[in-house]
């Protein structure tokens, strides 16, 4: 089997593709949670808390999307660099922020 033109051997485990799809799945999961968060916020009265919750959810969702998008772009390289700790921390903190917002809306 010959490698592609840039001289790198083909990765038979398709690791970058699998990682890209894992980011896609995670983005989908994040979208579902964001939709639930917006539903939670618009069920209540239109108070500043609920309106800012909708705005914050939109921001968090976009930030998550941006992280995933950058990572997917990085994975297109022949030898993808490792995940930056910043991106990992970001993805986790967006999740924690969604949970924190849910607590604020619940109580």
């Amino acid at each position, binding site marked *: 089997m010959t490698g592609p033109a840039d001289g790198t051997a083909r*990765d038979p*485990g398709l*690791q*970058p593709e*699998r*990682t890209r799809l*894992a*980011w896609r*799945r*995670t983005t989908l*999961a*994040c979208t*579902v*949670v964001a939709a*639930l*968060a917006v*539903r*939670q916020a618009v*069920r209540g009265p239109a108070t500043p808390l609920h309106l800012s919750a909708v705005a914050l959810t939109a921001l968090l969702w976009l930030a998550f999307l941006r992280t995933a998008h950058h990572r997917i772009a990085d994975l297109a390289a022949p*030898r*993808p*660099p*490792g*995940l*930056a*700790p*910043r991106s*990992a*921390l970001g*993805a*986790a*903190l967006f*999740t*924690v922020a*969604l*949970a*924190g917002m*849910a*607590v604020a809306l*619940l*109580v």
Partner: protein
Amino acid sequence: MIDFVKDVRLWFAPQRLRDEGGTPDYRFSLANERTFLAWIRTALALVGGGFAVDQFLPDLRWGVRVGMALALLAVGALCALRAVNHWVRCERAMRRGEDLPVSRFPVLLSLGVGLVAVAMVVVVLFGWTAPR
């Protein structure tokens, strides 16, 4: 505890992580990344479950409903933070050529999820719902 503080400092310092040992085969790093993402999805599912309990189980008593939602949200947040920590520790172990860190978190999480499921069955069976 001191080790944990060191781990947390690594979360914010990509350079310090890179200073440890040598760079492993990128495929191992990608596998570690996918494991991290799977944990993040688990965390997102728990947070989504917290929203869902509050939104789709209106017949439960307020205390039961909010208590379960808060428990799910707390475990979801914990799961997300622990995912970063475990990712950093695995990455460092691979760079140093050490054994991967072991963890009892998966066992605790599955026991917790099992307990919540049993609690839900009991709540539904005994009809501890709000009076209509």
